[in-house]
C-alpha cells in the first residue's frame, strides 16, 4: 500500500514539475504574457458543474453497487411454496417398469429464471401456480417473466398424468403429459417452441450472456448475466399444507436436478471455456474504458472540458484534468473492488451476498490482479461454502491473464480427455494463436473456437466416435456444416470436424453453437460411417 502511495506521489510530483516548467517557459521572457482567463462567473459555473459531475459519479457508483446487493437479496428472499410431506404414493401400480393413469393429483408448477454466470444457478425471478388434476385439465396457465432486455412468456396446460414404477421397483414417478408454448425474446436471441413435458424439471431455454449498459453516473458496470429458464412441475399430496421457503433455499435444494438438465456438451463446454465467448478486455486503453463506462464517459469528458475552463491554457489543462479524471475513475474502481472483496470474504454474510460480490469482483477494470488474488483466496478457503468456492474459482479463471492460462491445460479430475490422440497431433498449429484460456482438450471446444475465429468451416468428425454421452445405438450422428473457406487449412489439420448426435443433447449443442456465435450451422444429417474418419 505504501509503495502504491509513493508511486502516486512520484507521478503527481513529476506532473506538477512539468506544469510549473511549462508555465514559466510560457510566461517569462520578452513579449511573453499571461494567457487571458475566462471571466470569474464563467469559471465558477464551470467549476461547480464539473465538480458536481464528479461527485455524482461517486454517488452513482455507490448506489449501483448497493442496488446489485439489494436485488440479489430480494430475489433470494422471494417466498415460494414447497411440499412439506413426502411425495404422493400410488399403490395401485402392479409391476416394476409399468405405468397406470392417475385419477387425481395436485401439482405445484413453477417457472424459474436464474443466473448461471458463476457456474451456480442464482435465482432471479419465479412464478408459481397450483394445479389440480383432473380439475385443471385443459386450463391454460399463461404468464410471463421479464428481465432487462429479456422476456419469457409461456402458456401451459396439463393433458394427462401417469404414475410409473421404476425398473428397480423402488420408486414411483409421476409423469405429467403437458403442453407448454413458450416464447423467449432477448437482444441477441429469440426462440419459441413447444415442450411436451414428461419430467419434473425442464430447462426451457437460455439466452446467452447479457450485459446491461453501465448506468448513467456510475463507473461500475452492471454485473453480467447468463439467464436460464426452467419449468418445474412437482406433484404434492392432496393433504399437504405446503410450507413456505425462500427462493434461494428452494433453488439450492433443487440445484442438482437443475444442473442435470444441462447437457454433457454444455457442462464440458463450461469447463473448457470459463465464460462463454468472452474474456476480460485486454490491452484496450481509453476506448475500452469508454466502452465500459458507456454514457458516463461522455459526462466525465464534459466534466474535463468544464474544469479546463478554469485555466488560462485550456487545451493543456484539458489533458491534465482528463488524466486526473481517469485516475479518479481508477480510485472509484479500487474502492468498489475493496468493498466487493470485503463482502466476498465476510463469513458472516449470507451466501447470496457473497455470490453477488463474487460476480462484482470480476467487473473491475484497473485492478484485475488484486481481484484475481482475492477470488483465488476464497476458492481455496476450505471454510467457505462449496458453491462459493466453485464460483470464485470460475471467476478466478476468467480473470487470469492468458499467459497464465497457457500452462494449464488440465483434464477435469477423474476424466480422460474426450479426444483420442488423433486430435492431439502436432499439426494442430491453430491453437498456438488461439486464446489460451480456450485451449482445452475437448474437441467441441476447439471446433467452437475455430468457428469463432471464422476458420472452422465444415464441422465434421474429429474423432470418429459420436459424443460419448450418447452411446445409444439409436443416436445417429449429424454432420454440421458451417461456412466453408480456404482459410480452414490451418485449422485442425485441414479438416475440422465434430460429430453431434441427433439426440436432444446434440440439439442442445447446436443451440449452444448458434447462441455463442450468432449463426446456426447448417445441418446435413445422414449416416456417417464412423470408420472412414479413423
Amino acid at each position: 500500500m505504501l509503495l502504491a502511495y509513493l508511486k502516486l506521489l512520484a507521478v503527481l510530483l513529476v506532473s506538477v514539475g512539468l506544469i510549473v516548467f511549462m508555465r514559466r517557459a510560457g510566461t517569462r521572457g520578452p513579449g511573453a504574457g499571461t494567457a487571458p482567463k475566462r471571466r470569474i462567473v464563467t469559471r465558477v459555473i464551470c467549476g461547480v458543474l464539473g465538480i458536481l459531475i464528479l461527485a455524482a459519479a461517486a454517488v452513482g457508483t455507490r448506489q449501483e453497487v448497493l442496488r446489485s446487493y439489494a436485488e440479489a437479496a430480494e430475489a433470494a428472499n422471494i417466498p415460494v411454496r414447497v411440499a412439506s410431506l413426502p411425495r404422493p404414493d400410488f399403490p395401485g401400480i402392479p409391476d416394476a417398469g409399468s405405468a397406470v393413469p392417475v385419477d387425481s393429483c395436485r401439482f405445484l408448477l413453477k417457472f424459474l429464471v436464474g443466473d448461471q454466470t458463476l457456474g451456480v444457478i442464482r435465482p432471479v425471478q419465479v412464478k408459481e401456480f397450483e394445479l389440480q388434476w383432473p380439475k385443471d385439465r385443459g386450463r391454460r396457465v399463461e404468464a410471463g417473466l421479464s428481465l432487462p432486455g429479456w422476456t419469457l412468456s409461456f402458456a401451459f396446460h396439463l393433458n394427462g398424468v401417469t404414475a410409473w414404477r421404476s425398473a428397480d421397483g423402488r420408486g414411483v414417478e409421476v409423469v405429467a403429459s403437458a403442453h407448454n408454448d413458450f416464447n423467449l425474446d432477448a437482444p441477441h436471441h429469440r426462440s419459441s417452441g413447444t415442450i411436451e413435458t414428461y419430467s419434473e424439471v425442464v430447462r426451457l431455454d437460455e439466452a446467452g450472456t447479457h450485459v446491461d449498459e453501465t448506468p448513467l453516473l456510475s463507473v461500475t458496470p452492471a454485473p453480467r448475466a447468463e439467464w436460464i429458464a426452467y419449468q418445474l412441475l412437482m406433484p404434492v399430496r392432496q393433504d399437504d399444507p405446503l410450507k413456505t421457503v425462500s427462493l434461494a433455499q428452494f433453488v439450492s435444494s433443487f440445484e442438482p436436478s437443475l444442473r442435470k438438465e444441462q447437457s454433457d456438451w454444455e457442462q464440458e463446454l463450461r469447463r473448457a471455456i470459463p465464460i462463454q465467448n468472452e474474456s476480460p478486455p485486454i490491452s484496450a486503453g481509453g476506448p475500452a474504458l469508454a466502452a465500459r463506462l458507456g454514457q458516463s464517459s461522455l459526462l466525465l469528458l464534459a466534466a474535463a472540458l468544464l474544469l479546463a475552463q478554469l485555466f488560462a491554457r485550456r487545451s493543456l489543462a484539458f489533458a491534465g484534468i482528463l488524466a486526473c479524471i481517469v485516475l479518479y475513475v481508477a480510485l472509484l474502481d479500487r474502492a468498489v473492488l475493496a468493498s466487493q472483496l470485503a463482502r466476498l470474504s465476510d463469513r458472516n454474510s449470507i451466501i447470496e451476498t457473497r455470490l453477488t460480490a463474487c460476480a462484482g469482483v470480476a467487473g473491475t477494470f484497473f485492478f484485475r490482479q488484486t481481484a484475481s488474488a482475492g477470488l483465488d483466496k476464497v476458492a481455496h478457503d476450505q471454510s467457505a461454502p462449496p458453491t462459493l468456492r466453485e464460483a470464485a474459482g470460475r471467476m478466478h479463471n476468467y480473470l487470469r491473464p492468458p499467459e497464465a492460462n497457457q500452462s494449464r491445460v488440465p483434464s477435469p479430475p477423474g476424466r480422460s480427455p474426450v479426444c483420442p490422440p488423433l486430435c492431439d497431433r502436432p499439426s494442430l498449429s491453430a491453437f498456438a494463436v488461439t486464446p489460451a484460456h480456450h485451449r482445452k482438450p475437448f474437441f467441441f471446444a476447439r471446433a467452437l473456437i475455430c468457428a469463432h475465429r471464422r476458420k472452422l468451416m465444415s464441422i465434421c468428425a474429429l474423432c470418429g466416435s459420436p459424443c460419448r454421452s450418447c452411446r445409444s445405438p439409436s443416436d445417429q450422428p449429424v454432420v454440421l456444416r458451417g461456412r466453408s473457406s480456404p482459410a480452414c487449412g490451418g485449422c485442425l489439420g485441414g479438416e475440422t470436424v465434430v460429430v453431434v448426435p441427433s439426440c436432444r443433447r446434440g440439439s442442445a449443442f447446436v443451440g449452444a453453437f448458434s447462441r455463442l456465435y450468432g449463426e446456426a450451422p447448417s445441418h446435413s444429417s445422414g449416416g456417417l460411417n464412423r470408420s472412414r474418419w479413423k
Partner: protein
Amino acid sequence: MSGGLGLMGSPAEAVAARRTSVVSGLLWREWIAHQRMLQLALSVWLVGGWVLMIFNHPGWIIAYGVLYGWAAGQAFGGAEASEGTEEFAFALPPTRRQRYLARLAAGVASVLALTVAPLLTIVLNLPQKVWGLLVESGFTDPFPHCESRLLYVLAVVLPLAFFALTFPLAANSPSRRALGWAGLGGWLGLGTTGAASLVIKPWTPLHGYVWCQALAVLGTGALAAGYAFYLRKEGLSRPDRTPGEGRRAFWLFVVILLLVCLLFIVWSMRVSTRVAVPANRHAPTADTALPQDQEANDAARVP
C-alpha cells in the same frame, strides 16, 4: 544590445554574438507567436497518446503529423503575411535569410518533436509503463507492436513533406488571401499524394522507401525554391480580403470537393474491378458454391 557589444573582445565576436542574439530572438518570437498552436498539438498528443492511448499505432501518428505539418507550415511560414506586417518586418535588422531559416528551423523542430516523441512512446510502450505505476490492468497491457518499419519512417517523412510543401508557399504569399491559396495548395498536395499512393502503393516496402526519398527530394526542393523566392520577395502589407474573394474561395472549395469525390469514385471502381473475378476462373469455393457443388466437394474430401 549596445552594452552587450561593449563587453565583447573583438568585432568578429561582437558580430557573432549579435547574430546569435538575433536568431535566438527570432526563435523566441516564433514561440510567442505560435505557442497556442503548439500547446494545442501537444494537448492532442497527450490526450491521444498518454491519457487515452488512442495513438497506439504509427498510422495514427501519420494522420496526426500530416495535419500538424500542414498547419505548422501555414503558421510558421505565413505569420507576417497573415498579420499584414511583412513590409515593416523586413525593415527590421534581421535579414530575410535569418528570418526564413529561423522560422524553418522552428517549424521543422516542432514537427519532428511532435512526430518522433509519439513514435517513441509507441515503440517503448511508455504510457503503459507510467500507468502501470498506478493501476494493474486495463491501461497497462502493451498494444500489439507494429512490425512495419516503413510506417514509422512514413510517420516522420510525410508530416515533414507536408510542412516542406506548405511552408514556402505560405512564406512567399503576399497576403492572407494568397495564404489561403497556400493552404489549399497543401490540401491539394495531400489529395495528390493520396491519389498517387493508390497507384504507387507506398505501404509496400520497396515502393515505400522510394516514395519517402521522392518526398524528401520534393520537400527539399520546395524549401530551396521557396528560400530563393523569399530573398527577392517584395514585402507587402495588403488588406486581408478583397471584394469577391469569398465567392471565389467558395467555388474553389466546391471544385476541390468534386475532385476528391471523383478520385474516390475512381478508386472504388479500381477496387471493385479487382474483386470481380469471373466465376469460371476458379473452382467454386464453399462460399460461392451451389449446393450441388458443395456436396460434390464434400464427397471428394471423404477419403
